[in-house]
């Protein structure tokens, strides 16, 4: 009513119009940002896998299946000519460090406080296959992804071409191209693995010493991907065949141990790997053994070494293949692109 009685030329009227305009600016710009034209999906994937050009720091949560989340502090800086220098620290509820992985882009150093073990080896580089390679496994589509950690995202859907393999969903920061949220999705829709930032800040300066190996008094030193020659020959003697090991694993993963599983009069080799939160198993059956998949659904896939199959459990993907007379099986809650890259690196 007051508005109607005002003259359009009055001072109050003009001041009101200006205030309304100023107040609407953030809303309109937010709406415009939401309606931003969609970029090319593969280009966003390539950028996301390369990592952001600026240093950052954030709190990252990892959840396996229906389990509880694990909290970690992630700090990364671009390393000239080496890719990305990163440090991830898993923490307990009191903020104490449990498990640390650090890389300067060339070397990787990992420490487990609980077992007091230190692993060292060359850095594996990007965790995922490059975008062009990923597009051979997946159909990649892009849509607007809402906000994660308070930042606008693009959502990438990576649907496996083979149908039954684990797929992935990535929420990528629109401005910085950092993957803020990552889900590994099983064919039945269950989420095998979820990782997400709850907070992230860019442009943080990090001490380069954070990304270098530290001296840990009394800690035993281990190889990152293979056991010592003594353990290797012991496994060979007890199993009756030569164990094989991957030459590539995603960043942060280390060899936790090698077991022999007795089955009838044979032994199955079980190589256990972990990055502190996610576990990965590589099984090797004795020569002249046939894998009995039971009633499990499976799809055939083609690896560099020949045909293989993918299946899944209630919380992990399964990739099986033959090498010579040995059958190998990889089990982990990871996308098919990563499982296949690991499988093809097994020597």
């Amino acid at each position, binding site marked *: 009513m007051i508005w109607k009685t005002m003259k359009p030329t009055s001072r109050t009227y003009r001041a009101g119009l200006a205030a309304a305009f100023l107040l609407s600016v953030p809303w309109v710009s937010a709406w415009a940002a939401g309606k931003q034209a969609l970029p090319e999906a593969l280009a966003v994937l390539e950028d996301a896998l390369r990592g952001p050009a600026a240093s950052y720091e954030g709190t990252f949560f990892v959840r396996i299946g*229906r389990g509880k989340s*694990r909290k970690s502090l992630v700090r990364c800086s671009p390393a000239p000519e080496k890719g990305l220098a990163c440090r991830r620290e898993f923490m307990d509820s009191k903020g104490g460090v449990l498990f640390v992985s650090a890389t300067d882009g060339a070397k990787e150093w990992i420490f487990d406080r609980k077992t007091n073990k230190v692993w060292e080896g060359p850095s594996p580089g990007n965790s995922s296959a490059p975008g062009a390679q990923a597009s051979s496994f997946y159909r990649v589509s892009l849509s607007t992804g809402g*906000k994660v950690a308070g930042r606008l995202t693009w959502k990438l859907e990576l649907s496996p071409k083979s149908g039954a393999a684990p797929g992935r969903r990535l929420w990528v920061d629109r401005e910085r191209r950092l993957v803020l949220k990552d889900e590994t999705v099983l064919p039945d829709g269950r989420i095998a693995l979820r990782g997400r930032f709850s907070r992230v800040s860019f442009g943080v300066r990090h001490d380069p010493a954070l990304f270098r190996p530290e001296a840990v008094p009394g800690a035993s030193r281990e190889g990152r991907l293979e056991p010592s020659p003594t353990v290797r020959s012991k496994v060979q003697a007890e199993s009756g065949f030569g164990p094989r090991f991957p030459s590539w694993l995603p960043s942060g993963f280390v060899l936790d141990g090698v077991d022999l599983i007795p089955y009838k009069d044979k032994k199955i080799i*079980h190589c256990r790997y972990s990055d502190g939160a996610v576990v990965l198993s590589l099984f090797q059956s004795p020569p002249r053994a*046939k894998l009995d998949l039971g009633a499990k659904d499976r799809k055939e896939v083609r690896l560099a070494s020949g045909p293989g199959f993918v*299946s899944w459990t209630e919380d992990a993907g*399964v990739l099986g293949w*033959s090498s010579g007379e040995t059958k190998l099986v990889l089990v982990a809650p990871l996308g098919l692109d990563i499982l296949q890259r690991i499988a093809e690196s097994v020597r």
Partner: protein
Amino acid sequence: MECKGLEELLSAYADRETTPAESAQVEAHVADCRACGLRLAVLAKSKQALASMAAPAAPRDLKETLRRAAARAEAASPESSGPSFGQRLSAWRSALSPRYGFAFGLAAFLLVGLWFERRPEEAVPLDVMLSAHRQYTLERPLGGSATRPGASGPVSEDAGNDLEDDETDE
């Protein structure tokens, strides 16, 4: 195609007696199946080895030997039961040249090889491996967050290490 259904086709393929469609079927299967590939290689090698062997030449004195043998048979009485055991053995010995011995040995070797390749494989259930993986998931100090088999809710191995994320995206 299953390996069992391919056995006859493999042999025919090695003899080049298959139709173009059958040949394509065999080639596609062998490209993926190492065992059948090996079988085909063994068949091809054995046929090649036999084909490369020259026909044994007749002994020079064959004519003379046959004539003498015929004369002996004529001279023998009609009641006679034929050559003695010693005579028959020597006739066999002269007929068996070392080349025949080699062919028999090769055939025996290939048969043993084929049996070794085709002896039944022992089945290892995938479930044995999946149980071991699950156990590892539960035991890993930081990874122990999965649901125990048969349990109704999530179980943490080290509850003190679990920190809940608010999980809210805007």
